[in-house]
């Protein structure tokens, strides 16, 4: 999954690079540049343009350092966003340290994609009373919602619901099962 995310990012960057690099002059490509994977694009007027070059025809070495680190960061963010389930300790709604970076990645993505909606589903493990667990699941979903908003998502993109203990991820009992059921899931709409 990580690879395809990266591949996606590269594809995005490539097309960006292509349009950015396009000019009416024919540019030559250096070997080893990203452009070596590029297919010639036919533009109107019939001239063929190869991506990867800059305006005055000098084919600089692929992407700048900044562009490269941007690409890497975007790949990392996309990989983080593959994680959509967050776990909690018994009877708490505290977001764990390891969840924070992932949620920030999601929040940024939502900020950049205002049309994207997410449903935040809160759950609890089976122990204790059902109604209290409904409220606990809601508290967990609300905690995640607040965190996303603070980090850039807007309220209108987010919907919360709690299922309490009614929809466990894993059936059965025991600490390892319960730990997997105390969770919030992000469901992208």
């Amino acid at each position: 999954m990580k690879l395809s995310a990266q591949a996606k990012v590269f594809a995005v960057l490539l097309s960006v690079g292509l349009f950015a690099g396009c000019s009416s002059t024919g540019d030559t490509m250096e070997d080893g540049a990203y452009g070596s994977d590029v297919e010639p694009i036919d533009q109107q007027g019939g001239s063929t343009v190869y991506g990867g070059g800059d305006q005055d025809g000098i084919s600089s070495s692929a992407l700048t350092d900044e562009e490269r680190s941007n690409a890497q960061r975007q790949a990392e963010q996309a990989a983080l966003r593959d994680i959509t389930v967050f776990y909690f300790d018994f009877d708490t709604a505290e977001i764990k340290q390891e969840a924070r970076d992932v949620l920030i990645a999601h929040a940024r993505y939502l900020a950049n994609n205002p049309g994207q909606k997410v449903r935040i589903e809160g759950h609890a493990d089976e122990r204790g009373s059902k109604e209290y667990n409904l409220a606990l699941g809601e508290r967990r979903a609300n905690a995640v919602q607040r965190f996303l908003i603070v980090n850039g998502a807007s309220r209108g993109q987010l919907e919360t619901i709690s299922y309490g203990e009614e929809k466990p991820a894993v059936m059965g009992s025991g600490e390892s099962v319960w730990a997997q059921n105390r969770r919030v899931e992000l469901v992208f709409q």
Partner: protein
Amino acid sequence: MTQRILTMPLPQKSHTVTGFALMAAILTFLAATTVHAELLIRVTEGADSAIPVSIVPFAESGAIPPGDKVSSIVRDDLVMTGEFRSLAPEKMLSLPSRRDEVFFRDWRMLGQRYVLVGGLTEKAGQVQARYELFDVNTEKRILGETASAPVANLRSLAHHISDKVYEAITGVPGAFSTKLAYITLDKHNGKSRYRLQVSDVDGKRAQIRLESPEPLLSPAWSPDGKKLAYVSFETGKPAIYIHEMASGKRTKIADFPGLNSAPAWSHDGQSMLMTLSKDGNAEIYQMDLQSRQLKRLTNHWAIDTEASWDSAGKGLFFTSDRSGGPQIYYKENVNAEPRRITFGSRYNARPRPDSNGKFVYYVHQRDRAFGIARTNLKTGEETVLTRTESDESPSVSPNGRMLIYATKQGDSSVLTVISADGGDAYSLPASEGDVREPAWGPLTR
């Protein structure tokens, strides 16, 4: 030897027992289907201080249907309370059905305190039961009646007899003619099927009232036993419905943003306590059922839920985690400051006060296990009632003598009845799936 014919001056009382089953049959909204997977009673523990009682198989005449005998039903009812131990018919030295056939010395030898004898006569589809209860030591009759019902309602007739026998011995009206509501869940091919069901107190004559692919929770009986409120996720989020038993008519009464949960009827049936989170977090509200107006009863950033009126109907118990974890709180009236009731462990939730104002029952964590405990409302003393590990949803019988709750057995949830004082437990396991969220119905009439 001439036979003396004794006339027994039975009291003039004659009851026609119609039973719930008749009302249930008139469902138009939802076809009431009788479930194959009936709950079964199983004894899980023996009784120590239980009263030894003999229910002698009744004499029969006419077309009495085969199947569970009236005497077996009465026997099971009494034993389920945890207060009685019954003598198996194989051990009886004789099978009297009338006073003049009872040799008290025999019953004393068997260590019995009470003996019930009687007869069933069927005529033209109607069964009349004649039953007499004797105190073995004083040799006095303490109960003697006739009662009748249509043949189809033989079980109701048996439960009626149990009620009378229980009251004659303990002074407390029996709760054997009441109903249970509960939720079952079974999964086939990854699909979940939730059902709201109503059955007799022994799990028999179960009828499905609602079926849904989405969760159903928190069934709550109206005080007159004619309606059930519950939470349903059928619209995709939790909402509260009222469901009329006789007609099957359903009304959605709460569908606010966020939670709509934990419905609890007022004693006059005119309002409903509920947990809503529309104003930011889980709080308790009282909804007038006529006007649908809401009155907010709690105001705290903590979770406040699972409200239940006290026996007088003036104060209410609820669960709140305002002190860090869930505990039971009490408000003397709707405007009073909440007062914490439980202190013995870090998790106490889902309070259910009895109708006598003596105790409140709740889910209680001890060590790593979740059991049921009760607090004496006068003394504040807490007693843990169960020894099982994963208990939920306690519900007290309307006479305050029995408690039903859901417990995990293996992978499934089953219903268990115990004496309200704790101790002997009777499991009602379903043959498949999960049974949960029992609600004990009111005494009818």
